[in-house]
């Protein structure tokens, strides 16, 4: 019986029919999705912190308003994604708990510090750019609620990427100090941003099943190459450089070759040793702990009202 259901499930996937929350699905599919969607939601929420770090220091009122709107969008993305994950039978509180205990991960990129205003440009251009490259195929993910959430997320992310590029374009036309600020930010964020596509294909344990189930449609290395090809061209428009002396167009491959990634750094940051891992998680735990009395009061008030309405 089990096998039969699994066959039907795989046939649906192969026929590009979306899986919906009430459909039968293998437990591993459910768990993989919960892991991936909640990790994605947590990334949105933790990702608010490095950019939130500059809201009160944004250099113009226009930039302040755009940055605030952008960080607020990220909270909204977190909300859609938590809701999508909840359709798989896990509550938002459970997911939050998993984030706080370290059981659930979030994107390692947010464990790097934002040191200058130019970082706001680079995060939009490279970090959101890499996220879009990863996320556009997810709009066709086999799980319906995830795919639909991703359609909304991707629309807003492309706006985020444009505003990041525009910050850098403005800096590129600015003073020498501004140009240095931008180049320094690119130098710091380039390698971490290409690590965002995850480990190399032969070291990515979850990839094969995810491809078979069409949760993922392209491999980590394919997406990374695509991203590098795009950015290597865009950086010329800005008049800046990428910090990779091996970056070179390969006419035979029709792709850019690039230098070797420091995978040791990647695994160190995942294991908690990045420059801001502790601060990011502490900030989330603090917001949650400080908010406990607020949530308790809201619940107590709602219960009181419900009782009164019942009595009336």
């Amino acid at each position, binding site marked *: 019986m089990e096998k039969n259901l699994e066959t039907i499930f795989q046939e649906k996937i192969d026929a590009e029919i979306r899986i919906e929350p009430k459909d039968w699905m293998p437990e591993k599919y459910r768990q993989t999705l919960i892991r991936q969607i909640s990790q994605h939601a947590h990334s949105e*929420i933790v990702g*608010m*912190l490095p950019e*939130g770090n500059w*809201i*009160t*220091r*944004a*250099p*113009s*009122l*226009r*930039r*302040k*308003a755009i940055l*605030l*709107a952008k*960080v*607020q969008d990220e*909270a*909204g993305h*977190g*909300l859609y994604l*938590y809701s999508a994950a909840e359709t798989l039978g896990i509550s*938002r509180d459970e997911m939050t708990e998993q984030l706080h205990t370290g059981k659930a991960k979030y994107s390692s990129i947010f464990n790097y510090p934002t040191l200058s*205003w130019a970082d706001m440009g680079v995060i939009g251009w490279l970090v959101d750019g890499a996220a879009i490259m990863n996320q556009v195929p997810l709009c066709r993910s086999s799980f319906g609620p995830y795919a639909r959430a991703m359609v909304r997320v991707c629309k807003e992310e492309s706006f985020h990427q444009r505003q990041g590029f525009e*910050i850098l374009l*403005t800096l590129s*036309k*600015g*003073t020498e*100090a*501004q140009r240095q600020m931008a180049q320094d930010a690119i130098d710091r964020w380039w390698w971490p941003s290409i690590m965002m596509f995850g480990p190399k294909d032969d070291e990515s344990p979850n990839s094969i099943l995810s491809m078979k189930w069409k949760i993922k449609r392209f491999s980590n290395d394919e997406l990374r190459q695509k991203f590098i090809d795009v950015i290597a061209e865009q950086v010329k428009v800005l008049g800046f450089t990428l910090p990779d002396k091996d970056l070179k167009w390969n006419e035979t491959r029709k792709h850019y070759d690039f230098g070797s990634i420091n995978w040791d750094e990647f695994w160190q940051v995942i294991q908690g040793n990045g420059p801001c891992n502790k601060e990011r998680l502490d*900030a989330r735990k*603090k*917001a*949650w702990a*400080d*908010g*406990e*009395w*607020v*949530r*308790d*009061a*809201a619940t*107590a*008030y709602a219960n*009181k009202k419900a009782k009164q309405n019942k009595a009336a």
Partner: protein
Amino acid sequence: MKNTEQINQLLHLADNALIIGHRNSEWCGHGPILEQDIAISNIALDYIGQARNFYQYAATCINGNATDTKPATEDSLAYLRDVRDFKNHLITELPNGDWAQTNLRIFLFSTYQYFLYQQLQQDADAQIGAIAEKSLKEVTYHVRWAGDWVIRLGDGTEESKARMMNAVDYLWPYTGELFLDTPTSIQQQWLQKVTAVFEEAGLVIPTNTWAQKGGKEGNHTEHLGYILAEMQYIQRAYPNSEW
């Protein structure tokens, strides 16, 4: 052509919106509930939008009067004036404190703005009227949102009530300043609305009527200097740059 007093009034309205917007934006990413994090960031955005409208208009008026070559902009007004030139009410610059203090401040202040903007809608200056009309839609929501929190926390748990009472004690002396140069009717309407919400929340209006004042004349609390130091740092460190 506007005189100095009229321009100062515009700057006062702009500074109020900017400083309370700045304070609320400090919550972004740190709210007690994700939905509320979004809501308070949205309110901060509304305030910054109002500030921009008033600054832009103030800049136009200043430039219309000016003879020097460097025109004022929304950013020169927000980023290149110091503490003594800022004209916001003191209540807007006080620290956020906890969620009770933050919400009570928004409630008390946006209720004041609600009645003030209603009046400004009829201003002889059509531009001020238009900004007030647009802002009023936003402020109406702020009053409702923050008022709901005042009630919820006042009538929630023992802890939330205690925190709300602390917030009332702390903020109340800063409310008198709001009405120093507004018609009495605004203060009456404000007090009526505040009394109604306090009653529902089980909170008591303090009998202390002492008012801390001076913001409009540039006599601020010590908090404003730190807000400006943070807010203006890039413009000060890298002068004459486009961002």
